């Protein structure tokens, strides 16, 4: 950008590219289906972004690489889990690349940006992870579907389990940010409904990972059990600190599945033994569907799939079913949405259907950490559906 010639040529170049980029949807039938992938390829959630990307592509490959009989073209954008660029990056796929469907994303803040664009442009958006409640509650939209969970769904199943295990007095601890609050809300609902009482709610600023002070509080409160919501690096550290503080043996630790999902390596597993979590998936789910998926995934990508890969995979299955019903013409929105709403997804996590607000109605499994696995003990909540309160759809 040093001198004026360069500044002008690049501005003209952009303008030129823009004109050639003009494209007429009417010729949708035979031309390629344009799929936009907006996922974190850099930053703290890169691991999740890559897993979703792999799962999604694998679903399409297994269906012969065609969606509704049409060839596919991918458009990728790295959202860096940066909320302030959410709208900008979503528009890059929707307005510039004119994608027919936008798959994304992980971080709730960025999802708010995508949701704004999805509601304004009407582009089909499949959310493979972000659990923010608004997308399938107050701000639900006919063109927005989710194949993962709402932030409160996993912990909604946790309350009853803990009371059944005899834990009447519990402490809830999480980061003070949207996902933590939403998980806490539904845990309180389910736990109190099942007869438990929350003795104390502890919170620390996001992304602070210095837990020592609050662990000391827990030790002094001496609750029957502790329930929490943490994920990623912070979750791994919480497990280590919890065990190192000697609480592991004395006060059982429960949490939403993200506390242990994909983190149980040789170093962490010993500290995590016995931790019980609820999640809509587990690697050790003993079903033929799950084994076939895990084998295929390991063969294709040389690594073990986690819940995020499953959610990406299911996003692929959902798109395939919807497109098949309208044999590739995604502009036939009514039929497409009807097909996707009534879809039954044969997912590695088990069959699940779409709620009225377009969020999965799915089983929540109770899991316990044994060795380096989240062993499935049973179904904590059968066909659990998010309340979808405030959604005017259907």
């Amino acid at each position, binding site marked *: 950008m040093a001198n004026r010639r360069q500044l002008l040529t690049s501005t003209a170049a952009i303008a030129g590219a823009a004109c050639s980029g003009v494209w007429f949807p009417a010729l949708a039938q035979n031309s390629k289906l344009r799929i936009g992938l907006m996922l974190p390829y*850099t*930053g*703290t959630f*890169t*691991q999740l972004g*890559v897993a979703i990307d792999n799962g999604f592509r694998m679903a399409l490959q297994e269906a012969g690489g065609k969606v509704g009989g049409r060839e596919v073209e991918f458009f990728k954008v790295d959202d860096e889990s940066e909320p302030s660029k959410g709208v900008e990056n979503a528009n890059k796929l929707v307005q510039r690349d004119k994608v027919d469907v936008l798959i994304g994303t992980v971080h709730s803040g960025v999802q708010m940006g995508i949701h704004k664009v999805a509601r304004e442009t009407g582009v089909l958006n499949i959310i493979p992870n972000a659990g923010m409640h608004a997308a399938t509650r107050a701000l639900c939209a006919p063109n927005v579907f989710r194949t993962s969970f709402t932030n409160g769904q996993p912990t909604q199943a946790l309350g009853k389990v803990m009371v059944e295990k005899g834990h009447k007095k519990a402490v809830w601890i999480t980061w*003070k940010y949207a996902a933590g609050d939403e998980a806490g809300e539904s845990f309180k609902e389910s736990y109190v409904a099942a007869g438990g009482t929350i003795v104390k709610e*502890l*919170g*620390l*600023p996001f*992304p*602070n*990972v*210095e837990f*020592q*002070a*609050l*662990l*000391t*509080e827990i*030790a*002094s409160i*001496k609750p029957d059990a502790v329930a929490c919501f943490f994920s*990623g*690096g*912070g979750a*791994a*550290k919480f497990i*280590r*600190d919890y065990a*190192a*503080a*000697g*609480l592991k043996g*004395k*006060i059982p630790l429960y949490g939403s599945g993200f506390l242990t999902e*994909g*983190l149980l*390596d*040789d*170093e*962490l597993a010993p500290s995590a033994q016995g931790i019980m979590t609820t999640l809509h998936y587990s690697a050790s789910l003993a079903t033929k569907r799950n084994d076939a998926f895990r084998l295929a995934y390991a063969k294709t990508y040389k690594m073990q799939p986690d819940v995020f890969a499953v959610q990406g995979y299911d996003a692929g299955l959902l798109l395939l079913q919807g497109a098949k019903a309208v044999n590739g013409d995604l502009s036939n929105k009514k039929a497409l949405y009807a097909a996707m709403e009534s879809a039954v997804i044969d997912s590695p996590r088990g069959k699940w259907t779409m709620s009225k607000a377009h969020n999965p109605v799915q089983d929540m499994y109770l899991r316990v950490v044994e060795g380096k696995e989240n062993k499935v003990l049973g179904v904590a909540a059968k066909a659990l559906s998010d309340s979808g309160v405030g959604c005017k759809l259907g």
Partner: protein
Amino acid sequence: MDLANFFIQLLNSVQYGLLLFLLAAGLTLIFGIMGVVNLAHGSFYMLGAYMAYALTGAWDNLALAILAGTLISISLGWLLEKLLFRHFYHRSHLDQVLLTFGLIYIFEELRSMLWGDDVHSVGVPAVLDWSIQLTDTLSYPAYRLFMLAICTALALGLWLLISKTKLGMRIRAGAFNSDMAQTLGINIVRLHSLVFAMGVALAALAGMLIAPLSSVYPHMGSQVLIMCFVVVVIGGIGSVRGALTAALLVGLVDTFGKVLLPQFASMLVYVLMALVLLYKPEGLFKQ
């Protein structure tokens, strides 16, 4: 909060404070004494943590990994000083901000290419993998007590080095007036590379020592960066004693803030910093 609990929380705050000092020690050298605004300090910390993960993975011995990691980071620091930072001592703080901001991008990408983007954990060495029973439900991990000792030793060592040894005197002279120091026969060029390399090594050492406590994950450096500047600035730029005092103060405010005033916990540290800077504009222990 009964008395026993109070003392444990006090222990927690001192332990976190000393941890913060370990984190900021490298910065007290590069930013404090050499006056280079080093935003890449967090990246060196992250590189240290990833080196600890990679090397313990290979040899399964943290002490050996730390030794090798320190040597690697010293040479990295020395190289960076020679290639880049040497030309920035007399440049404005803004140039240093821009340079080190660029380095953050570079180190983040190199880490992603070398070690990937997964979350890892580093094992506590077996000899320290036990706990002391404090109360019927709470016990204190030995590794954190070991860290208490290490950080105190480091604080004492750094303070002695800087204020009591001949080398320390030369470092301070060089920082205060490098031209004058040069005329007095101090080889400033070699001194700067030495101090810079020490600064980078200290940051990486912090990463390696703290790795078993914190897990190892992308962008871990950027979360630590702001807190290190807070500690160095509150303490008074260039003062090791100041950084230690400030680290303990921040440890106190953060620990008791979380317990007593949870809804303001995240803002308390910054309120503390603003108050200190407005009351004593040059920090607590200005040289």
